[in-house]
């Protein structure tokens, strides 16, 4: 029974570590890959679209600041993969009364990186869908 408890504790600890690991996204530019878009909308409108885009792609919102939004995809466990663990950041800059620049990048954590993906393009697509439908 003692062995079972030890194994269970170790297993749950490993899961907790896996679930807790995350990487920090870096603003695209230079050698740092990511997406860049300009939206003819105010920064408030683009920020809300950014939050919605993260949520639609399965991210939990971890930071929502005036000019920065960040989300983390919770991990799940599978036969072949442990999807999740990515962190995406969206940087915003008000370039005019109704013009906002947005940079999007996704950081992949070291554990289970083969099953993780770069969600930046999917996030941009969802932001564009939301903002285009608001015309």
């Amino acid at each position, binding site marked *: 029974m003692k062995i079972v408890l030890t194994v269970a504790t170790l297993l749950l600890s490993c*899961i907790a570590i896996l679930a807790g690991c995350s990487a920090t996204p870096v603003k695209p530019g230079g050698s740092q890959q990511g997406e860049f878009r300009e939206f003819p909308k105010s920064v408030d409108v683009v920020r809300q679209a950014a939050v919605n885009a993260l*949520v639609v792609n399965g991210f939990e919102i971890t930071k929502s600041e005036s000019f920065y939004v960040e989300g983390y995809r919770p991990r799940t466990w*599978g036969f072949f993969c442990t999807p999740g663990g990515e962190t995406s950041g969206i940087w915003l800059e008000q370039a005019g009364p109704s013009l906002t620049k947005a940079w999007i990048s996704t950081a992949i954590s070291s554990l289970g990186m083969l099953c993780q993906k770069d969600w930046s393009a999917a996030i941009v697509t969802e932001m564009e869908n939301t903002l285009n439908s608001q015309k």
Partner: protein
Amino acid sequence: MHRICYSLVLLIALSLTSCSSQSRYTMLVPTHLSKPSNCDVEVFRTGQPTKQFVRISRIDVHIERTYFIRTNFDDVLPKLKKEACESGADAIIEIQELSTNINLDETNIFHITAIGIKYQQ
């Protein structure tokens, strides 16, 4: 005996982490009155009610499942209704479903976006 125990512990641990779900609502109006989370809310999968209404909330429900388990609308309906009630909505309209499979189709991603509405008296 030990092998059975190990297998059981492993299965329980894996089943605990084979699904992730999240749900939320965002208000589209400045103020709202929440209802009990088990309130009676109408669901319009297609069409709209004939009564006059105001769009008051955006509702998102997201479920990811591994082990080739799929999610359908009925699985997310309780969460959808709960979020609608908490946002103070009388009904749900404009339901959009998004279902995709990743990682050799092992993982199913299911997302619902909907609009919560309040009837006008």
